[in-house]
């Protein structure tokens, strides 16, 4: 039984999701880690250090839906499992790979129960499916936030493989959100803001608090749609799924679609004016009041408590 994991990477760095995916599937067999893209030498070197990786395969060339799927499908033959994180790249590529191989994929896996049994959330996390996959081979996407990361310290061999897959697509522009905060999907602490912040300027309060805590910044769909925060900060069914140790939700009432994204948070703190808000009811700890008074006080109090993680 052998496993092909497709690495996620961005701006020349291996995504933290990949080490979590490796850990998630480490019981399934020896793992080859495939890195596809341009200028990926540093990514491959990082990939080789992840514990549990037998071999790093490097396929140089522009990464795109159709070309990646063709390449992965062509490499699939010797493997029992073909796996990527359930991020925007894995979600885009893996169903295409599965259909090419005439396989039904199991996606958004949050628990590996055994070689052919998996748990995945449905209905935005309001129910959990236990799936058994009797196919000869398995295509999986893994929700990285549900797993701990594999350790480092490995020194797996790196092999460059031939990549002649062509794409019909052409990348015209990437509109990136500049931010020096941690990755939302894998952050240990997330500070999230809702539409109650009232403006993009006020949203900076959320950013200040996040900076102090070394936290990633999240936002509700309403806050994003109102222009207070960029779309890749959106947490929820349509945005990112988070599973931090601590989620601090500020001025967020808790629409179903937002709650779908935070089910995996271990502890939830809510700051809200409305004691009846669904998120306040869900929270482990709530402070009811005016967020514009509370956040500045909280910043001072955290300083007094000697807390500084940035």
């Amino acid at each position, binding site marked *: 039984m052998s496993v092909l994991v497709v690495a996620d990477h961005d701006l020349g760095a291996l995504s933290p999701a990949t080490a979590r995916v490796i850990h998630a599937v480490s019981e399934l067999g020896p793992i080859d880690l495939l890195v596809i893209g341009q200028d990926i030498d540093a990514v491959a070197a990082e990939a080789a250090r992840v514990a549990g990786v037998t071999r790093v395969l490097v396929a140089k060339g522009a990464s795109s839906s159709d070309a990646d799927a063709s390449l992965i499908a062509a490499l699939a033959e010797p493997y029992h499992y073909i796996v990527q994180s359930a991020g925007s790249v894995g979600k885009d590529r893996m169903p295409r790979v599965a259909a090419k191989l005439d396989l039904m994929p199991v996606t958004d896996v949050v628990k590996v129960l055994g070689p052919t049994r998996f748990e995945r959330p449905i209905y935005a996390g309001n129910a959990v499916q236990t799936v058994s996959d009797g196919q000869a081979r398995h295509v999986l996407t893994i929700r990285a936030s549900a797993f701990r990361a594999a350790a480092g310290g490995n020194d797996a061999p790196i092999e460059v493989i031939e990549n002649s897959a062509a794409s*019909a697509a052409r990348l015209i522009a990437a*509109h990136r959100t500049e931010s020096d905060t941690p990755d939302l999907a894998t952050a240990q602490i997330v500070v999230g803001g809702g539409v109650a912040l009232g403006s993009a300027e006020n949203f900076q309060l959320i950013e200040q608090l996040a900076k102090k805590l070394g936290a990633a910044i999240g936002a509700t769909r309403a806050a994003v749609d109102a222009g207070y925060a960029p779309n890749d900060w959106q947490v929820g069914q349509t945005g990112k799924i988070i599973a931090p140790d601590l989620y601090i939700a500020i001025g967020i009432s808790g629409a179903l679609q937002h709650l779908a994204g935070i089910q995996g948070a271990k502890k939830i703190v809510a700051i809200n004016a409305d004691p009846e808000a669904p998120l306040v009811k869900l929270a482990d700890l709530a402070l009811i009041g005016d967020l514009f008074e509370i956040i500045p006080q909280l910043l001072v109090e955290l300083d007094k408590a000697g807390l500084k993680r940035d």
Partner: protein
Amino acid sequence: MKILVAIKRVVDHNVRIRVRPDGTGVETSGVRMSMNPFCKHAVEAAMQLSEAGHGDEIVIVSIGPKASNDVILTALAMGAHRGILIETDAELETLAIAKLLAKVVAEENPDIVLLGKQAVDDDSNHVGQMLAALTDRPQATFASEIKVVGQGIEVTREVDSGRETIAIPLPAIVTADLRLNTPRNAALPMVMKARSKPLAVRPVAEFGVDLTPRLTIEKVSPPAERAAGKSVASATELAAYIATEVSQMEAL
């Protein structure tokens, strides 16, 4: 240009769902059903392309029980021209759905196939990508903007790092994300008119696709419940709580 839009009837997204006590699934009988929200964005996108002069015919296809006629009628009331219901009472896997849709694509030969990026019941997010593989067409998933440029389209996609814009040639498969547009509500005259538009009901067996499930759903369970929380009265207490949580984290 011809646009095919595939849509799904699901439990209405405002309904609080209930897992059946026997673990066989989510209760869907006696529950309000409607068009999957992402599919609605796909229908609206087709309408807007058509209104900009890029769609002579919009064909709607849905796969499901007879009652799925309702969501096809909704799409026809939004302005689509005709509908196809592939009728089955079985709950089909996404791979089987994609294979059926590939047959429809072979018959209809649309320039653009639009789908919602995922259905809010099984949250799979598979069918567009699978259909693209089976028809060997380029794909643009999670679209927040679609522009027709020359012989192709430029699609802005919502990705983990923000957004990216790609150009793909036609024919192509596009899946809709929520920010693509604001779906219209059909006016009453349109709803009346929808009933007179062609709607072909075809049994699933007609398509000769192997629909045997590949996966076994052993059970469906409710998520783990969260213990009731408490509240504090001041930022000082809150800061103390956060400091404690953080110190425990760093001990890990």
